[in-house]
């Protein structure tokens, strides 16, 4: 009985506690942050990856090189001509989200396509995948989509030991051009190579000053070692941190979105590359960092200087210890 009462009171006091810690809820995010700082007309810039890539390239932000685009069903059969000369490539929906519908081909020969996980697909399978993608299976509103074919990212070995499978990327949250919070998501056996926290991936909060791991979380519980690889997660430090932040800060000028998420991957040869932008980034980053976004946003509004260039903003973030 007492235990029950205790739990009840704990729940009652929870909103107050969360508020004190500056945790941003979904409703508050939508009302105060997104609807206030993100103009609806700017969404297509980030919702369409082809547009994002073109914009990014125009201001010299690194992105994976585009091999080609398939816009119509009749073009699907030309896939082999499009990817001619590339032994490996990635097919992704231009309007996709959360990595849905991404097909990574490591190698292909004759009628056999091999994915990263070693799964073998026939040309028909790939054809089918692109057809589904075009008819909008993976797009946000189910509208007709475009298949974007780009070069494979050669992941830096830095993260190799940290992740069970898949590609750890860095998620930056950028508010008014200032990167304010970041994390990296590491796939686990349980998450089946995927990087979604609710599917059992590990979230690692990163220090904004250094790109060093602050804390790691698995299923909402803080951990120190990766459950599958056993590596000490606290030793994780993202190299080229300044370059990472630069991409995020430049994305603000590029899109005009006051609140956005940037997914950045680290390529062995080309360094940090922008993978995609998101106008409605999720709130899991708070859990990974053990820190509320609301407070970070408030700090930017109150104390951060205005009228800085992207470079100046990154320097400010690197040296700032809020």
């Amino acid at each position: 009985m007492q235990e029950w009462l205790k739990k009840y009171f704990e729940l009652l006091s929870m909103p107050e506690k969360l508020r004190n810690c500056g945790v941003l809820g979904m409703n508050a995010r939508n009302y105060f942050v997104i609807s206030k700082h993100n103009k609806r007309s700017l969404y297509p810039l980030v919702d369409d990856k082809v547009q994002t890539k073109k914009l990014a390239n125009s201001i010299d932000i690194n992105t994976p090189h585009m091999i080609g685009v398939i816009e119509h069903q009749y073009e699907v059969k030309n896939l082999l001509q499009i990817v001619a000369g590339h032994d490996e490539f990635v097919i992704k929906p231009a309007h996709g989200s959360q990595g849905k519908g991404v097909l990574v081909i490591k190698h292909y020969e004759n009628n056999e396509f091999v994915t990263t996980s070693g799964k073998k697909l026939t040309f028909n399978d790939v054809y089918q995948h692109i057809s589904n993608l075009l008819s909008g299976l993976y797009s946000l509103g189910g509208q007709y989509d475009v298949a974007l074919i780009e070069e494979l990212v050669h992941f830096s070995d830095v993260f190799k030991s940290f992740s069970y499978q898949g590609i750890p990327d860095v998620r930056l949250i950028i508010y008014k051009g200032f990167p304010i919070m970041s994390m990296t998501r590491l796939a686990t056996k349980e998450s089946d190579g995927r990087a979604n926290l609710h599917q059992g991936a590990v979230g690692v909060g990163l220090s904004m000053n250094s790109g060093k791991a602050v804390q790691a979380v698995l299923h909402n519980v803080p951990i120190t070692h990766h459950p599958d690889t056993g590596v000490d997660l606290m030793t994780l430090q993202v190299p080229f941190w300044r370059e990472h932040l630069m991409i995020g800060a430049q994305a603000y000028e590029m899109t005009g979105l006051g609140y956005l998420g940037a997914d950045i991957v680290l390529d062995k040869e080309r360094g940090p590359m922008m993978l995609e932008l998101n106008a409605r980034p999720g709130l899991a980053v708070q859990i990974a960092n053990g820190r509320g976004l609301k407070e970070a946003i408030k700090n930017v509004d109150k104390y951060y200087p205005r009228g800085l260039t992207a470079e100046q903003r990154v320097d400010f973030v690197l040296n700032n210890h809020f």
Partner: protein
Amino acid sequence: MKKLYSVRGILTIFLVITVVFAVAMTWYKIAVWGFSFRPSAKSTVWTVDAHISFKPSGDPIEVSLSKPSAGVAYKILSEDTVAKGYEIIRDDKNNRILMKSKGRRNNQDLYYRIMLYDNEDSTGKVWDDKPAKVQKPQFENAQQAEMVNAIWALADAEEGSAAKRIIELLNEENLAPEVDAFLPVKKTPKIMADKIIWLLSTKGIAARIVRGVKLMEKKRAANADIMLEVYEGSKWQVYNIETGTMGLPKDFVVFQRGGVSLLDVSGGYSSEIKFSVVKSVISAFKMAGSRAKYENSGLFNYTIYDLPSLEQNTLKWLMIFPLGILLVVILRNVVGISTMGTFTPMLIAMSLVRTGFISGFICFSVIIALGLLIRTLLTRLNLLLVPRISAVVIFVIIIMQMLTVFGYRAEWKVIASAAFFPIIITAWIIERACITWEEEGVRNATKQIVNTLFVAVITYFVISSAYIRHIMFAFNEWNFVILALVMLLGTYTGYRLTELKRFAPLAGKK
């Protein structure tokens, strides 16, 4: 921040206005139209038929009948006359109804029908004009005077008002010799009433006959019932002429009182009036409609309750939508349950209302299960998305057909309700479930279906309640309140209930 507060302020004012409006309308509907919160509220309605018959003399006919006035013991639901070829004149001022016609030859049968229902606030005391000073009757002889004195002497020995004493004395089982001598052998209520009035007049007390109908079931072709009205103090007091009980009984409908006659027929003779009474029980809601119409409440004609019942039923169905929508908004934005499609759970709940919960639930599960099976087979065929989802839609229709036919043949109603489910929605649930299954695993797919069904079930229990449906229909002004609430919820920026658990590890950290 400031913007939020001003928006919230405006919406709060809007909410207050809608609440005030809804409360006022609800009060009006209950007080004036007699609506009730209970869907099953029943009212007793008495139908009194007055059958007037007479032989015409050939002269122009004029029948004048005294009719009950509204607001005495009963309220009038409707009035009707059956008198073919007669000109009907309603004289509400004198509470009479006039039926005029040219001279006729055959026996005439006219009907006046009045439907009455309970008036809770009847008191039995009726205010009326002060009567003229009563003329004390002249006694025929000393013997008569002596007899009257003797009767009064006997009456004075008892308790109660003069009228009560006299009535009781005249109704004793073993009459006193003086009384026995005074009363005639044939004791009809009319004669008794006349005798009582005469006796009272000897003391200067004004009294008169009240004619009406005592409401009893299965009363057929009965004479008018008679009661006595005595002027006491400053008001007319009604007495039962047999028991001396004071006060107008609740089941007595007054047709005529005072000096006027109950029925006047000119142009005819051997006139007779007989009353029949039928008791019926109808829903208070239905009655409210007729009542509002009788009272000529113009407002009523512009409400949904005056529409034909087919339209009413459609609207009754629509009226519960807003409540379902409010529920979905709360479950999504305040509780934070994510479902497949925003209003999908509500649409499922609507179907469950039509099919019945258990049978609908089983049937829906069967459709989804069969659909998923077929969808899995379709995956192997590698069809394009739109044709594939279309195929699923057609398969769902075929499944529904088969289940309905099979259920009907097997007389298994559980299955026969298949046709009520929204086809496209069902197909999309199958498609989404299948994709989620492939992409995020069985656990997430199941979780999404369970969430959707959970919200559907909650919505079902709210909208299937006969009470709530009745209230949302009878007091549809509350839909404005729901609108204001939904808009106000649009400014809710607090945590969702599920977020409390999600962000729990963050609590207490700084």
